[in-house]
């Protein structure tokens, strides 16, 4: 069996979530990595993808129409390449979730999103009800279309492979959608999805000013990414791309420090696979304390600065 993996790139680099998708795909068969982007990005990413162990072949699709990984042209491209592949795989990212269901519909396949475990070539485990239940589903489709929950598969290493690179003749057009602009707040911090440590804040912070002034010194000390609960984002304390949870980002760092986060189900669904969880909360009954390895009950405005100082 041969598996086609959509590999996402960012500034010519392979996204870590896509490395996890490659790892998942190697459990199913030989991996062909499809890299898309404008000509320069696709070229750079194809060179990197060829070095990833487990990748048997790289398909390089460079064209302006693919520059922003919009769903319409990328899905058409995948369908045009789908041929004999047994599985088509991407990471469960904003791009993967946008592109793969569209491609699946065009292939008359029911996609299987957020795969957490691969049982066999047809059978997969995925979360339902915000992660409150895990369903094992078996597909009767001839071709399987999957998105992979990146935190459940280790990212494939960057070096060690030497795959051949084939250029794809891109003929797809996009007549219905057009990229206008993007707003990507820049930060020197690690990305949430790949950070080793995450400091995350919730309702208890009380304001955008507090969110910054309390969490930043601690995050700086730990070299941590900063996350937020949905309440904190909805209240304007933090940018939406910081949101951790079922409807935000799914993370699994080595250390997750939840500050003033009560622990709603949908937040827990996004971080409960973290290796070590610390909860700092004034409410000893908060659900977050039921999943935390270390719980410190106290006033976060005193505790967090003290912790930053002690590190």
């Amino acid at each position: 069996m041969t598996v086609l993996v959509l590999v996402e790139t960012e500034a010519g680099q392979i996204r870590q979530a896509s490395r996890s998708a490659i790892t998942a795909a190697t459990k199913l068969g030989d991996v062909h990595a499809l890299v898309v982007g404008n000509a320069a990005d696709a070229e750079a990413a194809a060179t990197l993808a060829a070095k990833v162990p487990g990748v048997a072949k790289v398909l390089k699709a460079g064209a302006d129409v693919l520059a922003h990984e919009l769903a319409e042209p990328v899905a058409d491209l995948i369908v045009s390449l789908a041929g004999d592949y047994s599985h088509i795989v991407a990471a469960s990212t904003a791009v993967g979730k946008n592109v793969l269901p569209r491609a699946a519909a065009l292939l008359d396949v029911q996609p299987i999103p957020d795969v957490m475990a691969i049982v066999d070539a047809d059978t997969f485990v995925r979360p339902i009800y915000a992660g409150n239940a895990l369903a094992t589903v078996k597909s009767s489709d001839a071709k399987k279309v999957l998105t992979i929950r990146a935190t459940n598969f280790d990212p494939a290493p960057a070096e060690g492979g030497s795959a051949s690179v084939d250029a794809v003749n891109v003929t797809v057009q996009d007549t219905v959608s057009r990229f206008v602009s993007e707003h990507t707040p820049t930060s020197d911090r690690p990305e949430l999805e790949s950070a080793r440590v995450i400091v995350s804040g919730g309702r208890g912070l009380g304001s955008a000013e507090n969110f910054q002034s309390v969490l930043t010194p601690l995050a700086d000390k730990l070299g941590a990414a900063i996350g937020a609960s949905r309440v904190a984002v909805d209240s304007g304390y933090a940018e939406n791309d910081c949101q951790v949870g079922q409807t935000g980002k799914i993370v699994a760092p080595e250390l997750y420090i939840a500050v003033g986060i009560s622990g709603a189900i949908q937040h827990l669904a996004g971080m409960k696979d973290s290796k070590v969880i610390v909860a700092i909360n004034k409410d000893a009954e908060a659900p977050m304390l039921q999943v935390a390895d270390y719980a410190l009950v106290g006033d976060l405005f005193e505790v967090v600065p003290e912790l930053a100082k002690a590190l």
Partner: protein
Amino acid sequence: MKILVPVKRVVDYNIKVLVKSDGTGVETAGLKMSMNPFDEIAVEEAVRLREKGSATEVIAVSIGVQQAQDTLRTAMAMGADRSILVLSEESPEPLAVAKVLKAIVEKEKPDLVFLGKQAIDDDMNATGQMLAGLLGWGQGTFASKVEIVDGRAEVTREVDGGTETVSLSVPAIVTADLRLNEPRYASLPNIMKAKKKPLETIQATDLGVDMTRRLTTVSVAEPPTRKAGIKVGSVAELVEKLRNEAKVI
């Protein structure tokens, strides 16, 4: 401009579902059912566009069992003008739903279809994208802002690094994310008025759509639970534990 809004009847978001002891699914009998929260946002956005004068008619559609008409009445109480109930088994798969919606779109010829980005029961996050694919329309998924500019739909999307804005030719598909708007509560007079709004019922089989499931649920299990750890009494103790016990700092 006509807007079609598909809505799904799901277990209310405030209820924590339990896995059936025989592992065949989750227990839904007797639970409070509501409109999928993301679909409420989609209804709200469509109604706002009509109130602003950008849209002329909002049509709600639901695919499922007879009781889904309650969900459609809610949509009409929020402001949808009329509804279509497509009767089928409970919670068909997104591929089948997308095919039913395609048939409805061909009949009603809407300019926009607004959907919730995902249903909170199966968490598939697929129907909007699949419908867009089947129709060959543009898709503005995970939308936090929708504007009609010179006859095109300008959609700001929530993506991993922040937001992205795309411009779509109309007709187009939009799927609603949480921050698109805050849905209104239906007022009592509007709930009463909704009872008199037209609700058409059709059979999925009459649309000639193959509803056969492609996925079989082998089993449903509880996720592994995380055991509560220990309470630490001070910052010093926390730092000591993180250093010497957990070894993560």
